[in-house]
């Protein structure tokens, strides 16, 4: 669910000391205007901007929001900014170029620099984008989106304040040759932004740059690191070019693999079955409807007057005529419970926007340079009696696929995503892992999958991703989702099996060929003598040719013809005979 905010573009408040070094446009090459696609101006996007007031709550519950542990906290920050950039670019139909630089400061803090080539944030919105909780252009719309889990850029601002006392510095331009820079902080009591040190100048730039100084964060290259996060992000967003420069100055570029901005998912109203108490409260509290009943019918899909009547029967103590903003937590809980007891027409599957088989394949090839890739293609299904979803699973073998284990060997790596957003934490309870665990890998000749250089790419596409907790790092074990993931895994596992057996078969054929080749010289010299004929080089050549053509590689060509299948079968039988 898209609760919480999610700002398309984040940014700044009061300018701290960062300002002394002027921000240079990092690595972004000139902004591309995607051919034929009209970019959407930032003003348009921000016309839907709204606000909420829950900053205090988030401050108290930071661990729930991904700010627990130093490494994870940094990853969460990177996640928030990068996700915002990707969403903003997508909405503006811009091919994203994102540049992330991480520096260790002498005082033990880390400076995080994130620059994009997105639409930028109009000056008047920058404060709310970076300094106000639950403010954003998207949370009130029901759209499948990446940035469902965080608390957005404001969370970053808050985290900087809490750990270093400093605001976030930002720079942005909507591409009108006017660039502004400022510092942004959050007034936690009033959940309002505090902007300072605003400067404006002319220059060529479009996008948003964030510079923040954070304490209680740490950079490493573990599987939970910002690095792995960006790598995973690149996998799920082949249209993005992402660069990371780590504190050692090492620079990694995840090249763009696909030159097309993904189509925006169609906004849709939330379906009652996908709504959490939290969501309901959020929606209700910013609703302009006068009555709770009309709030329900106008904001949720498939909620008709007669359904409201059913709700009333199920929740007799709730006054459905009161103002939605007066909805209490307990009441919201009761309504969500009641939602589950009513029969609903299933929500439309239209809003689902998978990454796509081709794109996933490209991304896996691009990032992992594997020897073999296969991606499943499955149609949408529903869970919880009506929430549409679909799963995308890719498998990559060898190359850079797999996870470096502590003993130095490489093993299975499961890259989990929900609506393209990487899930790095809480793998244990995730539906994806449940599916992986319950596969009978032996059936696919992959019994030792745990120790194979294999990356499994698993993406859940849904407008309601059923997370296990507010940390939004694991998909709950909905039976239908686990099953669907299992089917998808089986598909790609079968392909890998076929590839491996084909490859092994080719290797065996090659070995057979060589074994026979050894004897060609001898037999070619003995035969003419036996036949009482002159020795001829022709004979040797002919014999070599016969062998070459029998043992020519078959797998390289892809699928085998029926005849080839037959021949291979025969060869295998020959082997067994001996």
């Amino acid at each position: 669910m898209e609760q919480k905010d999610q700002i398309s573009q984040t940014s700044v408040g009061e300018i701290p000391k960062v300002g002394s070094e002027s921000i240079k446009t990092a690595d972004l090459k000139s902004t591309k205007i995607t051919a034929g696609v009209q970019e959407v101006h930032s003003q348009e996007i921000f016309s839907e901007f709204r606000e909420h007031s829950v900053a205090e709550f988030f401050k108290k519950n930071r661990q729930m929001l991904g700010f627990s542990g130093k490494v994870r906290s940094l990853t969460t920050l990177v996640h928030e900014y990068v996700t915002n950039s990707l969403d903003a670019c997508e909405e503006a139909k811009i091919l994203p170029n994102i540049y992330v630089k991480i520096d260790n400061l002498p005082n033990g803090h880390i400076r995080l620099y994130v620059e994009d080539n997105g639409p930028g944030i109009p000056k008047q919105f920058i404060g709310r984008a970076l300094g106000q909780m639950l403010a954003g252009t998207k949370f009130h719309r029901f759209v499948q989106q990446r940035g469902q889990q965080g608390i957005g850029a404001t969370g970053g601002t808050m985290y900087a304040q809490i750990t270093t006392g400093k605001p976030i510095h930002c720079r942005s331009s909507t591409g009108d040759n006017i660039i502004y820079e400022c510092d942004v902080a959050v007034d936690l009591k009033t959940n309002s932004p505090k902007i300072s040190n605003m400067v404006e100048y002319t220059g060529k730039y479009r996008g948003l740059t964030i510079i923040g100084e954070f304490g209680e964060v740490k950079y490493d290259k573990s599987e939970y690191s910002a690095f792995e996060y960006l790598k995973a992000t690149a996998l799920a967003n082949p249209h993005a070019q992402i660069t990371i420069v780590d504190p050692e100055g090492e620079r990694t570029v995840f090249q763009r693999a696909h030159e097309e901005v993904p189509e925006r998912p169609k906004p849709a109203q939330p379906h009652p079955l996908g709504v959490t108490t939290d969501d309901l409260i959020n929606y209700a509290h910013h609703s302009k409807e006068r009555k709770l009943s009309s709030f329900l019918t106008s904001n949720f899909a498939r909620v008709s007057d007669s359904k409201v009547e059913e709700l009333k029967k199920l929740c007799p103590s709730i006054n459905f005529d009161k103002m939605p903003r007066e909805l209490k937590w307990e009441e919201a809980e009761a309504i969500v419970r009641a939602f589950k007891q009513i029969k609903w027409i299933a929500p439309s599957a239209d809003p689902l926007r998978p990454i796509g088989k081709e794109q996933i394949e490209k991304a896996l090839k691009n990032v992992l340079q594997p020897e073999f890739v296969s991606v499943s293609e499955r149609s949408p299904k529903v869970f919880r009696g009506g929430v549409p979803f679909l799963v995308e699973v890719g498998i990559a073998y060898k190359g850079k696929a797999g996870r470096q284990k502590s003993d130095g060997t490489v093993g299975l790596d499961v890259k989990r995503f929900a609506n393209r957003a990487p899930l790095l934490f809480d793998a244990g309870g995730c539906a994806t892992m449940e599916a992986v665990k319950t596969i009978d890998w032996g059936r696919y000749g992959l019994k030792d999958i745990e120790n194979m250089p294999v990356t499994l790419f698993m993406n859940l596409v849904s407008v309601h991703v059923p997370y296990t907790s507010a940390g939004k790092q694991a998909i709950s074990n909905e039976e239908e989702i686990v099953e669907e993931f299992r089917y998808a895994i089986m598909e790609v596992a079968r392909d890998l099996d076929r590839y491996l057996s084909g490859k092994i078969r080719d290797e065996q054929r090659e070995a057979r060929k060589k074994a026979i080749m050894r004897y060609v010289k001898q037999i070619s010299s003995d035969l003419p003598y036996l036949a009482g004929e002159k020795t001829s080089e022709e004979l040797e050549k002919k014999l070599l040719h016969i062998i070459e053509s029998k043992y020519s590689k078959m797998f390289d060509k892809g699928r085998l013809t029926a005849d080839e299948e037959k021949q291979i079968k025969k060869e295998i039988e020959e082997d067994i005979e001996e």
Partner: protein
Amino acid sequence: MAKKKEISLEKSDASLTKEDIIVKEKLTSLGKQLIKEIEAGQSPYFETVVRGRSNVLHGEEGYLYLGDKKEKRVFLNVAQAKKFMQTVAVAAKCKKFKEENLHTSIRGLFYQLKFTLGEDLDEELFEEQSESNELVEDLEVALNLKREDLNLSTDRKGVVAGNLVIRDKFGGEETEIDCTKQGRSGWMIPSDVDNGMEFIDVDVDYVLVIEKDALWQRLNEDKFWKKENCLIITPKGQASRGCRRLIRKLADMKLPIYCFMDCDAWGWYIYWTIKTGSMNLAYLGRNIATPEAKFIGVTMSDIERYDFLKKLTINAKEVDLKRAEELLSYPWISRHQDWVKELKIVLDTKKKIEQDALQGPRLTFVGEYVREKVENKQFLY
């Protein structure tokens, strides 16, 4: 490789016998056939008859032979490639022996072929002699000839005495051998009694095959062969290919073949090998079997006739009893009631009798025993 220049050493066929030329032709046509297959773009192959037990048959004729089951030897099969190449090498080498009119053993052949396949290959054409034996058999079957025909000699074993005169063309010379003039040692049966061997005179009434050399020497000293006008042959245990072939040839001359063996597992086995041939050499069929052969003794029933034998029996060993049971299970044996009776006595009494026991009363009794048996036609099939 040495062999190339040797082509120039090829002798003219003039020095070869008709049989030699036929064998050489068979080898040549095998080579031509394989080359033709390669030129047609297919894997070279030849057919051979399956030599496994499943294809060993026993018919009314009373000997073991191979059925019709054939199998292909194919070069383009990783499991067969090396053997195929080796077989061709063996064939080529045998052709050379033929042309040179020289003979050697399989071991000699092995050393001729034990060379590396090439500087870059860590492999020899042959590494073990055992590899070559099976290939030689392949060739024997595929070309329908015996290894002796390929100038491959086997170990000699077996001795003959009696009125047999042979002309032996060997090493470019001809020698006449009179088996009555071989003194105490007798004439040693060669590996090949077909090629270059001519039976000039065989004037005997029957052939006596004696398992043990000791008993043969006994009868030879008695001039038994002279008194009885027979040939005495000892295979000295299991009969060699040459010995079995000789017995076959003598039977072909309508001479009765009487076998005189121990009354124990080994003796019976030797007898039945002479009579029916063996599983291993079933591919040689009737050429190496003599179904006409008869067993004159020693038998368990002899105890009834010769009282002294009662005291001279010894305990049968486990192997004897096992062999007796095995023989009973062969249909070509169990159909002879006499044999069934004999074998059952062995199994019941767990006793056996050696030929040597006949020397119990007096040394010359051995001859008397044989004479009596032959005269009374007391034998088992």
